[in-house]
C-alpha cells in the first residue's frame, strides 16, 4: 500500500490560527452586547457593516494579488469587528467604510497580507478616520439614548472624559460609572469591567500573553503618575487617565496583535511599556484627546529593531550558557536525515 509521507512531528497541537482568531471574535461579542445595551441596535449594524466591508476588501485584494481569496482565517473579520469598537457609536457608515478600506488595502495587503503587515490594520484605519473626521470622531453619544440607524443632527453628542482631561479638568463622572461604562466614549472602550473580563478570557485561553498588556498598563499608569494632568489625588488621576480613551481596549486587543508585536518575553515587555509611556506622553503634547492609536503605530515601526535586539540578547545568553554549546546527541541528526530523505 502507498501512503502519504510527512515530516515529523506526527502529532500536532489542536490550536490553529482559526481557533486564535475565533477567540478574539468571541472576546469582542460581549462588547457588542454592552454597546447594544447602551446605544441600541445601531452598534450591531456598524459591526456587521465593518465585518462585511473588511472581509470583502480582504478577498478582493487577495484576488488582485493573484492569490485565491482565503478569508477563512477571519483576520479581515477581526479588523472589521474592532474598527467600530474604537469609534463612537454615532460614527457614520462612510467613516467605517473608509477606515476598513484604509486598514485592509493600505496597511495590510500591500505588505503581503495576513501575518506580514507591519502596522495593525484596525489601528491604522481608525487613525485615518480620526484624522479625516476629527469632529465626529471625538464627539460621542450619551449612553442609554437609543440611536437611530442613520445618525442625523437630532442626536445629542457630548465630549468624552478624555477631552475634559486634555483640558486639565477632572471629569464630572464618578469612577464607578466609568468602570461600568456609563460614560460617553468610544463604543467598545468605555466598559472597563467587560474589557478586563475579555482580557482574562484571552489569557486563560493562552491566545494572548500576560506580559504585554501588563507592561502597557504599567507604563501608562507610571507616566500618568509622574506627569499628572489634573489636580486630583494621584491615584484618582491615574484611574481617570487609564479608564478614559482607548487605553484598556488597546491593552486587550490592539497591543496583543500577534503579527505586529515582538516575539520574545523581554522585548514584549519593552514594547508594551514603551507604547504605554508614549501614548500617555503624547496626551500632553498632542492636540487630539486620544493618542494611543498613533503611538501604537509608531511603536509598530520599531518592532523589528526590538526583535533584532532581542535576538542579540538571546545570542549573547546562549554564548554565555555552557549547556547549549554541547553538540546534539547522535540519534536526532540521523532521524532528521531520514525524514528529509523520505520527503
Amino acid at each position, binding site marked *: 500500500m502507498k501512503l502519504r509521507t510527512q515530516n515529523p512531528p506526527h502529532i500536532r497541537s489542536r490550536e490553529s490560527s482559526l481557533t486564535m482568531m475565533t477567540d478574539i471574535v468571541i472576546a469582542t461579542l460581549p462588547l457588542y452586547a454592552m454597546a447594544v445595551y447602551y446605544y441600541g441596535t445601531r452598534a450591531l449594524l456598524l459591526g456587521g457593516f465593518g465585518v462585511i466591508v473588511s472581509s470583502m476588501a480582504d478577498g478582493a485584494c487577495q484576488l*488582485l*494579488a*493573484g492569490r485565491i481569496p482565503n478569508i477563512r482565517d477571519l483576520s479581515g473579520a477581526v479588523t472589521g469587528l474592532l474598527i467600530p469598537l474604537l469609534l463612537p457609536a454615532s460614527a457614520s457608515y462612510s467613516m467605517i467604510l473608509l477606515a476598513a478600506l484604509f486598514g485592509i488595502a*493600505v*496597511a495590510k*495587503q*500591500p*505588505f*503581503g497580507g495576513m501575518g*506580514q503587515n*507591519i*502596522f495593525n490594520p484596525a489601528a*491604522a484605519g481608525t*487613525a*485615518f478616520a*480620526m*484624522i479625516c473626521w476629527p469632529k465626529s470622531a471625538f464627539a460621542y453619544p450619551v449612553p442609554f439614548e437609543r440611536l437611530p440607524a442613520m445618525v442625523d443632527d437630532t442626536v445629542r453628542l457630548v465630549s468624552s472624559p478624555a477631552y475634559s482631561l486634555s483640558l486639565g479638568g477632572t471629569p464630572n463622572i464618578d469612577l464607578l460609572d466609568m468602570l461600568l461604562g456609563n460614560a460617553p466614549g468610544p463604543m467598545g472602550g468605555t466598559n472597563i469591567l467587560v474589557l478586563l473580563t475579555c482580557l482574562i478570557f484571552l489569557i486563560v485561553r493562552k491566545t494572548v500573553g500576560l506580559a504585554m498588556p501588563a507592561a502597557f498598563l504599567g507604563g501608562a499608569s507610571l507616566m500618568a503618575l509622574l506627569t499628572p494632568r489634573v489636580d486630583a489625588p494621584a491615584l484618582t488621576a491615574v484611574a481617570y487617565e487609564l479608564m478614559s480613551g482607548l487605553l484598556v481596549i488597546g491593552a486587550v486587543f490592539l497591543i496583543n496583535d500577534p503579527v505586529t508585536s515582538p516575539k520574545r518575553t523581554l522585548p514584549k515587555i519593552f514594547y508594551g511599556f514603551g507604547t504605554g509611556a508614549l501614548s500617555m506622553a*503624547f496626551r500632553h*503634547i*498632542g*492636540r*487630539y484627546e486620544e*493618542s494611543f*492609536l*498613533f*503611538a501604537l*503605530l*509608531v511603536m509598530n*515601526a*520599531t*518592532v*523589528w*529593531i526590538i526583535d*533584532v535586539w532581542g535576538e542579540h540578547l538571546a545570542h549573547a545568553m546562549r554564548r554565555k550558557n555552557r549547556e547549549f554549546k554541547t553538540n546534539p546527541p547522535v540519534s536526532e541528526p540521523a532521524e532528521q536525515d531520514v525524514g528529509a530523505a523520505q520527503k
Partner: protein
Amino acid sequence: MNLIVSMLTVLVSSAVIENLLFARAIGADHILRQTRSYRFIIEFGLGAAVISGVTVMPLWWLSQTFGRESWWNYARSMAAVLLIAVVSLLLTIAMAAAGRIQKPMRLVDQGAVYSASLAVVLLSLTAKMAFLPSVLYCFGASAGLAAAMILVHAGRERLELCVLPRPFEGLPITMIYIGILSLAIYGLIGHQLPT
C-alpha cells in the same frame, strides 16, 4: 532651569514635531535610495547637524540686519546655499586632514546633506527664533531626520522578509510605509504644520 526646559522643548519639537522626513518629506527621495547602514545614517545626521548649525549663525545675524528688505527674501536662499557650500568644503578638508575619511562621500550623498542642511537652515530662519534656539533647532532637526532614517531603514529590513505583491516591491511599499508612519506622527502632534 527655565532656560533648560525651553531649550529642551525646542530640541524635542524640532526633532519630533517638525520632523523633516515625516512631517515635511524633505530628503525623502535621497533617503529612499541611500539608507545603506546605520553607520551611514549616523554620519549623515552628524554632518547635517554640524553644517546647518555652523551655517545658521551668520545667516541669523544677516537676517536680523536685512530682514526688512524685499530682496533679502531671494538673497537668503542664495546666501544659505553658498554658506553651506563653504562650510561643507571646510568640513571635508578638516576631516581629510584629521584622516577620518577613508573614502570620499559620494556626490549624491553630498547632495542629500546639502538639501537637508538647506532645509534645516531655512526653516529655522523662517521660525524667527532667538539665536540659541535657532542653532539648537538645527541640531534637533538633524537628529530627528537621522531617527526617521533609522526607522525607515529598519522598515526596509523588515520588508525584505515579507513576500510582497510584485508591483509593490521596493519603492512603493517604502513610500506607503513612510506614509503610515507620518500619519502616526501627524496624529501624535495633531496640527497642520506651517511650511
